[in-house]
């Protein structure tokens, strides 16, 4: 079955302040959508609200994944239904090794008594780490603890590869990456492109899109998608910045919810 992810009229607030003011977006299996926009326009809020971060309250709208109501689900249920968010700032957790964590995450998707065998798991993890050119010792390091910015981002992509999600959201995966790491991360994403998987890539630089070619590009301002187009839109934004979009739409301040 091909994936269908649909967001309709999504509104969300944090601490009573409305950030998302009605988002509509459809992502089909095999499609890569990029959301671009300056800082403070609500891009990361969209990612967090979709995943169900407890600080973000959804006040209106609907989100469905293959017809199932995502907003009704808890964070862990969303993940098990096939949502994956590569986070901008992944948590560091002392005492929980990367391997133990990932194995728990995989087993959470499997029936009790049908857990993944240790050998199979280790082989899989080693294989994927090699693809991402990660040092094998990261397997037994505490989760994200003492990882550099770039190592954390690779670790997010590693989790994506291991968990085989239906809808992947990458939140600023390119921030803090040097050009080599960016290439490796992009290759990881490209290798995961498949008919039954959709991608939502959030970035404010076009440079990631040189490596991952999107099918659709959306510009976000003031908590809304204000303009959509194909890959050529990203190129124009890179060349000319965001001012022409603001002018065209009569927007003076593109941010939302800023103090």
């Amino acid at each position, binding site marked *: 079955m091909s994936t269908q992810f649909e967001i309709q009229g999504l509104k969300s607030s944090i601490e009573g302040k409305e950030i998302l003011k009605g988002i509509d977006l459809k992502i089909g299996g095999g499609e890569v959508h990029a959301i671009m926009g300056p800082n403070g326009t609500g891009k990361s809020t969209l990612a967090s609200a979709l*995943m169900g971060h407890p600080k973000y309250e959804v006040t209106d709208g609907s989100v469905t994944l293959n017809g199932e109501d995502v907003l009704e689900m808890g964070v*862990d249920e969303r993940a098990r239904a096939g949502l*994956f968010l590569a*986070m901008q700032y992944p948590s560091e957790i*002392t005492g*929980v090794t990367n391997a133990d964590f990932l194995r728990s995450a995989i087993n*959470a*998707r499997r029936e009790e008594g049908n857990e993944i065998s240790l050998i199979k798991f280790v082989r899989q993890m080693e294989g994927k780490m090699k693809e991402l050119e990660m040092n094998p010792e990261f397997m037994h390091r505490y989760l994200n603890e003492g990882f550099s910015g770039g190592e954390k981002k690779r670790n997010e992509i590693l989790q994506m590869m291991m968990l085989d999600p239906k809808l992947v959201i990458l939140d600023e995966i390119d921030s803090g990456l040097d050009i080599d790491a960016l290439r490796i991360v992009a290759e990881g994403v490209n290798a995961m492109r498949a008919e039954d998987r959709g991608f939502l890539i959030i970035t404010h630089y076009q440079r990631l899109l040189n490596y991952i070619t999107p099918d659709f590009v959306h510009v976000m301002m003031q908590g809304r998608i204000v303009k959509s187009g194909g890959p050529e839109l990203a190129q124009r934004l890179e060349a000319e910045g965001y001012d022409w979009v603001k002018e065209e739409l009569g927007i003076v301040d593109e941010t939302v919810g800023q103090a």
Partner: protein
Amino acid sequence: MSTPISSFGREAAAAIARSKNEPAWLVAWREEAGQLATELNLPKPEKLPLTRWTLDQYGANRPGQTVASAADLPAPIAALLPEEKNGALIVQHNSSVIFTQLPEELKAQGVILTSLEDAARNHEELFRKHFMTAYTKDEHKLAAVHAALWNGGVFLYVPKNVEIAAPIQALLFADDAEATFMPHVLVVADTHSRVTFVEQVASTLGETSSTLLHNSAVEVFAKAGATVQYAAVHQLDDSAIDIAYRRAILDNDARIEWIVGDLHNGNAITDTKSVLKGNGSTSDSKIISIGTGKQRMSLTTQAVHFGLSTESDMITRAVMKEEATAIINGVTKIEKGATKSNGQQTERVLMLSPKARGDANPILLIDEDDVKAGHAASVGQVNAEQIYYLMSRGISRSEAERLIIHGFLDPVVSEIPLEGLREQLHRILERKLG
């Protein structure tokens, strides 16, 4: 069988010593301690009054049955030991040591492992030079009672330049709440020796109206260049009281590593102190604890720097559940003249219940200018961002919490030097964390 005593002093202490045929000097010494016990006050742990604790039931001398081989050990004791039972091992059952085993090759190197009662008779010089010099009988009433009544016990001597790879194991076990159970562990590591000692304190007391007072002490003497790793896991029934004063005296370039699971189910006072006497000596202390039910605990770590360029690091991590209370003190003291020393400490408390209490009290006492010292303390709940992160990968909330709580204690658990005990510890954690 003798009956438990609750009033006690000079004569009572001497009578017990005589009944065990102890040397005259030790009988006299115990008499003095018995006298002190009637005169001294209880210790006053920070923010934890002991007034309502039953600290005056000392029990009766109830020796266990000695056995000839590890295979003959009573089943509840055998269950606490690792599969592989050929290594160095000493077992105390209630009021006496019932089994000692030391591999021939260690004996040949001059290593001594014996009950402390035996050491008083047969290794008098080493005994008298060290015994209760780091933890003295006049510190307070509990120390005096311990000095007067200590029984069984462990004496380990590692000669000069001897390095022992496999851990030496002590199991101190009680199943009679009316027994006097006051073991004392004395470790003397001679110059440039190296040893790992693993101590396990456990009980199965069943239903009882008596209060077992495990009034224990550990003294470690690490001579110049010696390294001692001392791991301890305490887990007694909730009706018992666990008192554990641990002391290490470090000569030049000596090192102590304390790895402690204070996982008792009832009230406890533990105090783990390193005295960095020699230049270049170092101390590393890691303590974990879990508070459950209504238990009250005072957990103290201390480092006292006298020598030049001495270094200490102390970490205490506690998980507090239900209505448990823990007062966690860290005391770093750098004496005048201990230049270039470095004392660091961290206390972290994870609160799992609104009725639990965990206080972290870092104390730095610095009398020298040219030093480094630092502390970090935190008391908090399970981090919501961490829960969110784990859940966003499909892990349920309860499993996420479990991972984070176990992870919180892992920096100590993973350092336990004996695999069998590490597994034992995991089982204790699963049970206490429920």
